[in-house]
């Protein structure tokens, strides 16, 4: 035990020999995910990206408010960001299935009436379950709609009385009134104070009740694990390099056993990866505002991902005959797992045939664990954590066998 600890500590110390390289390892995923995050909308600022395509189903026939909002969504200014298709629910579902739209917004029957009577009502957002990113934007879009409605109610607080009367008398408000109200928005907005905070509309994902996934966690976790995988490969490549050096013979000339050597190597790698992960987690919190409820489960997930990454690398080293091979296999696995696992391209954007393969990428489970943890979806979190642990256990056994066999060839 003392030997393992000693060797692992020396190993860990050696890792810090090139601090600049480590900083690079940390900064690269941060910078890359920052760029992608901004490219895909950042913190709701204006950016040029392809307009969001949404199907709108208005079941609130002749409802004033829904009509107003549908118009607002179709407005010249919003067209740049949101392209709407006003269709029936049936058609909308067809469109989402064919990935023509990223989401469906449904205004329920009696929507306008309920709002005017200050009764709670809800707009439904249906997300395309195979898409990861665009529904996020759809949610953001819907948030805009929601906020817009709230603003509308705030701005036209005075006029609401008139509207309500008109509705009660079942009169139609003439379009001139509506247009003048609409044109007044600019004036009124300057006078706007956040009086109206009471939310009238509940945004709800019909699949699961959860808060919207932030884009930041998606990109940041994916990129980070992708780079961590690079690092763990680079560290354990050292073990392959060492096979041809006398230093390993010198280790085994002492009382150190082969399994102790391998175990110490693994431990120091896991601890090192975990250290970098902690730095990245703090960075994620500070830079992207990623929050989790349970620090305990965050640590647990980070430990398991550090273990899983190290074991993936150990497996690669175990199947490699020499340094060059280890390097090549490392590259292949890093990119394969990163692409399948959604670190580089969102899983939803993968061709359907490949998408199913994401389950073989350990990076997929790591990223998913972080997303589910930060979106408070604990069911999903425990599910992926369990799978990650099982994969880690399997890899531990296989790579143990492979690496010890390689070591036995070096010294009799």
């Amino acid at each position, binding site marked *: 035990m003392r030997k393992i600890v*000693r*060797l692992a500590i*020396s190993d860990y*110390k*050696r890792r810090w020999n090139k601090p600049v390289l480590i900083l690079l390892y940390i900064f690269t995923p941060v910078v890359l995910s920052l760029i992608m995050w901004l490219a895909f909308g950042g913190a709701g600022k204006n950016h040029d990206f392809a307009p969001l395509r949404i199907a709108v189903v208005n079941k609130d026939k002749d409802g004033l408010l829904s009509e107003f909002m549908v118009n607002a969504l179709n407005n010249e200014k919003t067209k740049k960001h949101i392209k709407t298709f006003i269709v029936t629910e049936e058609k909308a579902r067809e469109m989402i299935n064919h990935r023509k739209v990223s989401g469906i917004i449904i205004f329920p029957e009696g929507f306008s009436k309920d709002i005017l009577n200050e009764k709670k009502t809800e707009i439904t957002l249906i997300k395309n379950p195979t898409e990861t990113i665009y529904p996020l934007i759809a949610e953001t879009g819907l948030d805009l709609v929601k906020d817009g409605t709230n603003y509308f109610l705030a701005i036209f607080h005075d006029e609401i009385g008139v509207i309500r009367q008109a509705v009660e008398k079942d009169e139609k408000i003439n379009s001139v009134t509506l247009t003048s109200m609409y044109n007044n928005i600019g004036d009124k907005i300057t006078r706007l104070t956040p009086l109206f905070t009471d939310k009238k509309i509940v945004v709800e994902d019909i699949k699961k009740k959860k808060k919207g996934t932030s884009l930041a966690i998606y990109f940041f976790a994916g990129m980070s694990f992708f780079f961590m995988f690079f690092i763990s490969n680079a560290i354990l490549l050292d073990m392959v390099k060492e096979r041809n050096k006398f230093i390993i*013979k*010198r280790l085994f*000339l*002492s009382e150190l056993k082969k399994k102790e050597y391998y175990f110490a190597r693994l431990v120091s790698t896991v601890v090192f990866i975990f250290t970098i992960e902690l730095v990245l987690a703090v960075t994620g919190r500070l830079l992207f505002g990623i929050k989790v409820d349970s620090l305990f489960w965050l640590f647990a997930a980070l430990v398991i991902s550090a273990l899983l990454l190290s074991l993936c690398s150990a497996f690669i080293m175990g199947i490699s005959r020499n340094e060059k091979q280890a390097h090549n296999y490392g590259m292949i696995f890093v990119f394969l797992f990163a692409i399948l696992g959604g670190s580089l391209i969102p899983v939803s954007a993968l061709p359907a045939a490949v998408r199913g393969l994401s389950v073989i990428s350990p990076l997929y489970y790591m990223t998913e664990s972080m997303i589910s943890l930060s979106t408070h979806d604990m069911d999903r979190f425990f599910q992926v954590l369990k799978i990650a642990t099982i994969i880690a256990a399997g890899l531990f056994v296989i790579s143990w066998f492979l690496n010890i066999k390689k070591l036995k060839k070096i010294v009799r």
Partner: protein
Amino acid sequence: MLTVENIKKSFGTVQALKGISFEVNKGEIFGLLGPNGAGKTTALSILTSLIDPDSGSVFYDGENIFSHPAWWRKKIGVVPQEIAFYEELTARDNLLLWGALYGLSDKEARERAGYLLQLMGLGSKEKAKVSEFSGGMKRRLNIALGIVHKPEVLFLDEPTVGIDVQARVNIRELLRNFIHEEMAIIYTTHQLEEAEELCDRLAIMDEGEIRAQGTLKELIAQLGEETEVEFTGDFEEETVRSLEFGTTNVRLSRFSGDSILLEVKEEEIIPDIVELFMKNDVTINTMDIKRPNLETLFLKLTGKNLREG
């Protein structure tokens, strides 16, 4: 006592060792002298249990080392031809690491590391990473790591390769004056002066074979050549030729007015010769002893010249 019996080893078609045998006594510095490719490293790898021989056996105090590798590894220290430690760590950290791996307690390891750093002249560079060391310092640390656990037998494989003359002399002195006190040493080299100065006994190796072995004196005696002594001075031929050297061990081989050359069988009689000259009022200005040396022997045995340059 280490007994090596008829060790053979081939790598594919290359016969690296064609059956070598020798013995190393306790407290001895035994040298394996041979050019590159002679099989020195292969021999040491087998003796240190790192690779198996094709045939032959090695006994230490009557025990077969191949049947008890774990026991044997505790008894030996190995200083390889290449630098073998972690350059990203300090010298002390390296020593503490191997100390722990050899089962020393923390206290023992710290004491031993401190002692060895001082002995090896690395004390002032204690906190520096080894990557900043000079070649000579790295070589000294390489040796220190081989003896951190106080082995009974130390194997050194060309431990001074690639460093300057001063650093080499320094290492030889360390080995001869300090390290040797604790352990027997088996030392390989392709440098004549190292073998001459350091080793009590030598084996001359070439192409996987031991061509000759013994003390330096024994080896030179094998050469069958005699020591030549050249005197300069003012000599009268009559006087010199009339001198009775007393034994058949001295022969006058050349005479000229100011120099004479004598061939002697045993160097021990040279003082007697000098005394004889003085008794007979023969004036000597200089005396030069030309011994047959390892170089001539090596050349004769292997047809190779080991001197560098």
